[in-house]
């Protein structure tokens, strides 16, 4: 079962929830898909012994065949090609690897070569995995797709998604069995939760809500969820103890059996909802 943990904005506790869930379950795999800022390993402290490059295809021009006609530049929607004095310049760092220039070239002067844009790091058992986009690279999707290919060995795959509702998040969660939306009980949290709900509804994915930093049980979040008939799966309390440990890179499940039980229960609740 693949469970994606996401939130409308950053800082709501996505990593706390996903890493805690993975930590509490046997036979589980944690996959950090927040490839611009993966920080799951601050908490899970896996020894990253395996590395694998993420490659994309970039065009190169054979100057002998190129006539400088500019068809490739016309075809490129991303301005990644310039033609100056009949000479083609290709800018790899904004190339989307779509292949349009190669299709457009009338003389077959363009071929494609692989280029590294990111890296996937994991421990030897692959129970921990994260993708990291190289600095200055614009495309997150190839890293996400490669991570997705490696999510299958374990009973429970817990995915820490990037925040927001961008196309990166779409790629991360689209084939998940269940989505856990993490929010906090403030008007900000509610507003951003609605954005995340919009997204999972568009993708027709089953979902439930985890309220992080919960104080009372009757805040606008709970009221909203009740009205909309949305499952509140779990509440993590607003506590200075949790916050203090978080600031040191320690998850609640790493020092408290109570929280560990809560996360095991969370999985049971999800299973109940999806069965």
């Amino acid at each position, binding site marked *: 079962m693949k469970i994606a943990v996401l939130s*409308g*904005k*950053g*800082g*709501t506790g996505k990593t706390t929830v996903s890493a805690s869930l993975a930590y509490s379950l046997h036979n589980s795999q944690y996959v950090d898909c927040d490839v*611009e*800022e993966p*920080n799951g390993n*601050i908490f899970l402290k896996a020894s990253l012994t395996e590395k694998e490059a993420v490659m994309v295809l970039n065009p190169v021009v054979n100057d002998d065949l190129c006539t400088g006609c500019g068809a490739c530049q016309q*075809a490129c*929607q*991303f301005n990644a090609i310039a033609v100056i004095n009949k000479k083609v310049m290709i800018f790899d760092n904004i190339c*989307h*690897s*779509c*292949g*349009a220039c190669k*299709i*457009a070239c009338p003389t077959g002067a363009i071929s494609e070569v692989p280029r590294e844009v990111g890296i996937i790091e994991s421990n030897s058992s692959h129970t921990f995995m994260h993708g990291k986009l190289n600095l200055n690279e614009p495309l997150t*999707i190839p890293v996400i797709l490669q991570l997705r290919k490696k999510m299958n060995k374990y009973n429970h795959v817990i995915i820490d998604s990037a*925040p*927001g*509702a*961008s*196309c990166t*998040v*779409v*790629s991360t969660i689209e084939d998940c069995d269940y989505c856990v939306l993490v929010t*906090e*009980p*403030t*008007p*900000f949290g509610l*507003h*951003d939760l609605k*954005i995340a709900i*919009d*997204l999972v509804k*568009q*993708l027709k994915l089953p979902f439930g809500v985890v309220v992080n*930093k919960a*104080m009372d049980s009757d*805040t*606008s979040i709970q009221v909203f969820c009740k009205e909309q008939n949305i499952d509140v799966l779990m509440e993590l309390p*607003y506590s*200075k103890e949790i*916050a*203090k440990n*978080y*600031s*040191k*890179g320690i998850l609640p499940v790493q020092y408290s059996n109570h929280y560990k039980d809560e996360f095991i229960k969370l999985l049971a609740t999800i299973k109940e909802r999806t069965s």
Partner: protein
Amino acid sequence: MKQFVFISGKGGTGKSTVVASLAKYVNNKALADVDVDAPNLHILLDHEVVEKIPFKGAKIAKIDQSKCTNCHKGYEVCRFDAISKDDIINPLKCEGCGACLLVCPENAITLHDELTGHVYQSKINEEHFTHALLAVGAEGSGKLVAEVKKKVKELVKEEDYLLIDGSPGIGCVVIASITGADACVIVTEATKSGLSDLQRVQQVADHFGIKSFVCINKYDLNIDVTKKIEEYCKNKNVSVIGKIPFEPLIVKALQQFKTPMDDDKLGHIKSEIISLWNQLIKET
């Protein structure tokens, strides 16, 4: 007019709470929220939307089904998995690269401008407040940020200050947020990743020649990290202009749509924010 942008290395550090508080305190100003992925400032501020402007910031392919002969050539060349086997385009995945157009023998595919969000022109009493929201699954938040800033530029004239709630992160959106600002205030948290997040975003500001200031939120959660942040700032000649303690009552206030400025129990936070503002003014 002085322009201040509030940013953070990651989301959820309290940026919008600080800006909303200042919005209640500072006079003769304009406001903007360029956190277009998850705009929050409007929630705490009693505003009236004057105009909602659609924004088309991306292109996506569309298939004219009456011309389509289902040759699947578009499906074969699409590297974004955006065209299904039955030749339907998924707008959430289409990157607008146009590769499918080039191979379509019937010229059935064209690129269209796609609505990627809305810009809102609002008023808070008589003050301008410009904000925006990116559409779900859309790309191009940087362009929407630039659009908001363009609209603000058209509107503001006589104001003393422009306060901008910026975007989190370190990417292009942040650069779009801070360009043209007189200074940026980085709101960070005293957590393990707080310092590295701060360093990255501070370097971005430095690089673009924009003076930065730091506000440490929940500074008492981890005094060691707070000290490291202060040390880093000292070395970089960056002033730490605010230190806000961990305070559950702030969350309580937010739940009632109040900022720390309009809650009697939060006098200590209020005075910290006022002192932050005074120092910001003094040093710019």
